[in-house]
């Protein structure tokens, strides 16, 4: 199963007021099952566009995407998305938000009791069983993001797509959610694609880091294998020369090879 997710020569061209805009050009990427891949690059380079292609929210102008040997056409629950701004429905409780997803995927085949158990199990997985009845406006930003992760996981997706999931959080909350995500990924053996602009986050979490060149017509610049042993501990890694070497490779890519043009600040 080396080619669980295949992205073959994918390009994305948007029609804008000022003519055509090529966001992505000739993206080739293969992922194996259970792999954690980060997409990193300067903002505007098309990382989220690439993620949206996998999510099915956008269709590639050229090329093809395959998941478990089936072509990706449109969004579907076998690809769980965690949005940057959590996107919880404010009129549903945490439980209600997760249950909506569970009901959609398993509602036809399973009993109501089983659906309830699934929703609660997903909330428990992110440590929020106690907040099940709360509404999104009653909980913190970090908790909302965890509910978003629970919602995506509850669908038992083939691949989990995270779009800068911790970008809007403070550093301490982000660190604890990263640890939690590592635990969840270990426990569930999930296949994950994560968009990030945080170098430490990418190195800490990923098996491979895919670095995108600056747009327009962004493509894959380099792919870095992160061969640090798991489970990883952020304190131990801080003193690990291997970690720093990887980190400086990503930094070199971002700030030397792909230095941002000054105008696009």
């Amino acid at each position, binding site marked *: 199963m080396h080619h669980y997710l295949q992205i073959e020569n994918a390009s994305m061209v948007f029609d804008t007021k000022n003519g055509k805009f090529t966001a992505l050009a000739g993206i080739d990427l293969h992922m194996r099952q259970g792999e954690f891949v980060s997409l990193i690059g300067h903002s505007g380079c098309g990382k989220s566009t690439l993620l949206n292609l996998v999510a099915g*929210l956008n269709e590639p102008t050229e090329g093809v995407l395959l998941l478990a040997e089936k072509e990706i056409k449109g969004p579907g629950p076998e690809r769980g998305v965690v949005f940057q701004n959590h996107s919880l*429905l404010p009129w549903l409780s945490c439980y209600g938000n997760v249950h909506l997803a569970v009901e959609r995927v398993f509602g036809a085949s399973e009993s109501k009791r089983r659906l309830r*158990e699934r929703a609660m199990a997903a909330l428990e*997985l992110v440590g929020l069983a106690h907040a099940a009845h709360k509404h999104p406006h009653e909980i913190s930003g970090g908790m909302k993001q965890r509910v978003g992760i629970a919602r995506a*996981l509850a669908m038992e997706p083939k691949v989990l797509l995270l779009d800068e999931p911790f970008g809007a959080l403070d550093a301490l909350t982000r660190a604890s959610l990263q640890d939690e995500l590592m635990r969840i990924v270990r426990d569930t053996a999930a296949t994950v694609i994560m968009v990030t602009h945080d170098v430490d986050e990418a190195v800490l979490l990923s098996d491979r880091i895919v670095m995108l060149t600056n747009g327009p017509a962004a493509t894959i610049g380099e792919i870095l294998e992160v061969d640090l042993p798991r489970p990883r501990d952020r304190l131990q890694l801080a003193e690990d020369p291997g970690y720093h070497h990887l980190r400086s490779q990503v930094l070199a890519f971002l700030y030397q090879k792909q230095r941002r043009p000054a105008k696009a600040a």
Partner: protein
Amino acid sequence: MSAVTFHEDRLDTVMKRADTHTIPPAEAPPRSRPTPFFETERGRAWLAGAGGLLRAAVPPGIGLALFVLLWHLVAASSDGLPGPAPTWEAAKALFADPFYDNGPNDMGIGWNILHSLYRVGVGFGLAALVGIPAGFLLGRFAFLSGMAAPIISLLRPVSPLAWLPIGLMVFQVAEPASIFVIFISSIWPIILNTAAGVARVPQDYMNVARVLNLSEWKIFTRILFPSVLPHLMTGIRLSIGVAWLVIVAAEMLTGGVGIGFWVWDEWNNLNVEHILIAIFIVGIVGLLLEQTLMWVAKRFSYA
């Protein structure tokens, strides 16, 4: 094949953990004379609440007192306008027997109010029945919205009473004609606010719907409708306000039983106290309608 599996035994651990809380035995409070009510926690809270209420009531109270004083002064210097005291006396007499019935031209004030409310209820109800679905359609489909835009822009600013002759011509009878006027003048805020609400459903929520692959029905019940509800309630509130504004004028023209007709009748009897009372009634009923809907809207809003 799924890459994600759950550890359901975790759920059980949590359940058990919740049960292991033990409450330490409460220490018996030392026996002494009972504390006076205003020194207990509840008493203090009560005092603080009463104080807050008092502070909140002072400015409106002063405002109303000044208003009554001004009214009194104006009435004293004019020969036709009754002052607050005679109006109050007349109101007491009027409300002593609000539900008498001496034939269609002489009914108690209660009947008049109820008849007006009935017309507003029917006219507004029909407007909501037509306007809410219309608003959803216009908000969801840009083409329909484009089609309806010129018609709505043209008809919306028309004075409600201009519709009355059309109503009378179509229905031949006064009752449905005035209901028609209520309908046509209160439908626009509902349509426009609902449509605006649908058009403004955040793209994030629609993305959630797409990612979860929800059915159209689920999209409507779980995402569109709750998201539009606050806008919808605003439309309904504006619309019932318009309906209540219009009913007095419409009834003045059509006659029958109703608060508007009653005002006209009392004008013909030169009973100015009753006209003033009617103005207060219209104001108070309008306020109550609005407050009720505000309360309902609050119940339905999610944040």
